[in-house]
């Protein structure tokens, strides 16, 4: 297997981008990545998208993306794993390069969520349709049940949940591409509208348009495209029971733990070596559960991390320096790639006001549904 590097990145601003279509979102992000590397040809494109068919009625977006990038003819395919589609696309692109099938691969994620579709209903298609969606559950509802189980098991409080959102907004306010550039205080999170008890509006990631793209090549070729490549040293994918009811402990994300174990083993590092992490905080409770499953904190201790500052910028292991899904925004299929871009910039020392000093190892974790699929990548500064 060849060593693989990320050599360039491109990303649209995240938000309600009324003027920009699905195809143009992709082209904007992809072009930025290609220009950064000075590249005008590709061997393959992998594009992650959860639900382009439901959001804008467009399936078959592999060729659409290649065509609009002016590269009809290039191998292109879509990867889907609900909100983990972007992370899974990176996994596919990584394997493509590592295996020697292709030398120059663009991995992108794109979602156009604000084009008139009922986002709640579309996202609910990532739940088990026969046993969950049939009964009327929504994603906020599923994560609310995870939150209540966590509160029941570990004594997690609403204030601790709210502290995660406060931290995300503080980070997001430093990110010019974030959907929300404002800070929020604990009080406003705790008094925001209830969506699914105990989760309130400010515990939930928003509905977002956006795209993100990274360029992969064999490490040995990386210097042709950049003087600061970042090495992809670990990739782990795992699945868990599809329906939340079928998990032994609804407060624990087994698939996240398993995907992390696989990535750590491949990278030959442990959670204690991670200097910066982007995790899938689609809801405040998700960040708490993810950092536990990733081993960044002990099981049951995730609730203390945000209030203590441990996971804030300047803390022991800064988590979601980009603002996370919560403040940066969550264009579902693009999220996994956008996470990688944040860590790519951190390891290259390009994160500006959000820079984590001297970060060598960074981790991204992206999950689908209520945690039935998870993908973890570990990146290292070269």
């Amino acid at each position, binding site marked *: 297997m060849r060593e693989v590097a990320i050599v360039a990145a491109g990303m649209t601003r995240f938000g309600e981008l009324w003027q920009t279509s699905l195809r143009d979102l992709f082209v904007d992000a992809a072009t930025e990545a290609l220009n950064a590397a000075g590249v005008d040809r590709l061997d393959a494109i992998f594009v992650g998208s959860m639900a382009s068919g439901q959001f804008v009625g467009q399936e078959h977006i592999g060729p659409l993306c290649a065509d609009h990038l002016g590269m009809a003819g290039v191998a292109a395919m879509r990867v889907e794993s609900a909100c983990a589609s972007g992370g899974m696309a990176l996994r596919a692109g990584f394997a493509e390069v590592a295996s020697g099938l292709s030398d120059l691969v663009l991995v992108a994620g794109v979602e156009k969520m604000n084009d008139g579709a*009922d986002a*709640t*209903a579309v996202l*609910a298609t990532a739940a088990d349709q*026969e*046993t*969950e*969606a*049939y*009964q*009327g*559950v*929504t994603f*906020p*509802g599923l994560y*609310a*049940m*995870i*939150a*209540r*189980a966590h509160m*029941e098991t570990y004594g997690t409080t609403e204030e601790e949940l709210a502290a995660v959102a406060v931290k995300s907004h503080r980070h997001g306010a430093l990110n010019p591409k974030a959907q929300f550039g404002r800070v929020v205080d604990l009080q406003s999170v705790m008094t925001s*509208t*209830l*969506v*699914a*008890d*105990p*989760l309130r509006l400010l515990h939930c990631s928003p509905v977002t348009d956006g795209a993100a793209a990274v360029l992969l090549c064999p490490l040995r070729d990386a210097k042709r495209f950049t003087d600061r490549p970042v090495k992809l040293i670990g990739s782990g994918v795992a699945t868990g*029971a599809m*329906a*939340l*009811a*079928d998990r032994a402990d*609804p*407060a624990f994300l087994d698939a996240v733990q398993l995907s992390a174990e696989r990535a750590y083993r491949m990278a030959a590092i442990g959670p204690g070596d991670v200097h910066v992490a982007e995790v899938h905080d689609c809801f405040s409770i998700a960040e708490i559960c993810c950092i536990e499953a990733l081993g960044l904190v002990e099981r049951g201790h995730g609730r203390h991390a945000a209030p203590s500052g441990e996971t804030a910028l300047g803390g022991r292991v800064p988590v979601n320096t980009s603002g996370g899904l919560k403040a940066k925004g969550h264009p579902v299929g693009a999220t996994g790639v956008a996470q990688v871009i944040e860590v790519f910039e951190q390891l290259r020392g390009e994160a500006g006001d959000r820079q984590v000093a001297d970060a060598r190892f960074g981790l991204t974790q992206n999950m689908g549904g209520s945690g039935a699929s998870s993908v973890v990548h570990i990146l290292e500064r070269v």
Partner: protein
Amino acid sequence: MPSPRYWREIPGRYRLEAGRCHGCGKVVYPTRRICPACRGAEFEPVLLSRRGRVVTSTVLRVSPDDFVMESPYAMAIVETPERVRLMVQVTDCEPSTVQPGMEVTLEFRLIRKEGQSGILCYGHKAVPVVAADTARSR
């Protein structure tokens, strides 16, 4: 929901018919081709008890379009004595009173309507035992 897809699930939805794995005894609801515990492929049908306990719960205040008239409504994961867990709505009560540990019965209810002219979809919902008549829970 297209009617063939609804019709196919009638035994599980109407009668809480589950499958007991011949290999390891695990009860699976709805029944499956392959046991998630032992990968056994032989099941015998069993009827779940129409009662259980709330494992975790929430109150949905923003609902999918088909459930707008019902919101806010409680949803819970309920574990039956067969150690099967179901995702169900909890009805006939103040939604905010539904909490982990609560004892419930499972009653046959209308789950959703397919728009103004589509089929009516039935199944089971939980009712807190304090509200239900205990004689109904066998």
